[in-house]
């Protein structure tokens, strides 16, 4: 499974941003994601990838790449 493609798709849907804006080095704050958006994204990912992402992990997530890295290590 191409995790990056899937995550990108979810971010585009959740945040209503353009696909080109979502790169590995993109920070969520630059996508104008507020705290509710992040919670929603995390919950959607937990569902999609069937895992749990703890609040401590969520705190550490700053960029799209951080998410990919976490998912690749845990899926």
């Amino acid at each position, binding site marked *: 499974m191409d995790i990056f493609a899937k995550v990108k798709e979810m971010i585009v849907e959740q945040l209503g941003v353009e696909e080109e804006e979502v790169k590995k080095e993109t920070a969520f704050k630059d996508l104008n994601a507020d705290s*509710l958006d992040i919670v*929603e994204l995390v*919950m959607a990912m937990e569902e999609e990838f069937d895992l749990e992402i703890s609040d401590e992990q969520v705190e550490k997530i700053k960029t799209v790449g951080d998410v990919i890295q976490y998912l690749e290590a845990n899926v």
Partner: protein
Amino acid sequence: MMSKTCIITGASRGIGREIALTLADQGMNIVINYLGSQARAEETAAEVESRGGQALVVRGDVADFGESEKLIKACIDKFNRVDILINNAGITRDSLIMRMKEEDWDKVISTNLKGVFNCSRAAVRFMIKQKGGRIINIASVVGLTGNPGQANYAAAKAGIIGFTKALAKEVASRGILVNAVAPGYIQTEMTEALPVESKEKILKHIPLGRLGQPADIAEMVKFLSMEASYITGQVMVVDGGLTM
């Protein structure tokens, strides 16, 4: 226009039942939750349907996290959405603090306060996805003023008010409005238990000179659930002037 869908906890009788009928008159789909009074919940449902609303009856203890989630899920499964959640289920277990059993404290807090958390938590994620919704929590003037013999109840109702404001701030950006209604003394089975003398005493303190009726509360709930697009995080006191 598509019918709105509303979940009312504790709608088998009393204030919850009246809210169900009032909103059914507006053509809403109503999910009627109850705990013990099955026949009366079904009677409420029949009345909702005779007024042109669709009804779904769901048994479930709001004090139970899992059962509350199931309640919200049952609504989504049937109606595909939840526009309005009315947290109305509530109980009393009155006694003076020194005589209050731990169980009476726990029971009232878990039904009246945790129940509001349980149902709101489950409903809010669907409302966020829908980008809108309303949550109305039935508190009490006792949560504002206190009342001897009701420390557990007063604490739970005051807790609901704090919860209402916190949640209102969390979800305002998603178009979800969260308010509380604080009824005064309303004639239901809950207040029927009071001795006649204390009812007369209360009556003396109500400027409008009568006890409230469930319809007085339902009217406010209707306003908050269908109109009132610029009100959130508020406590609407409906008490005939008792606490002014």
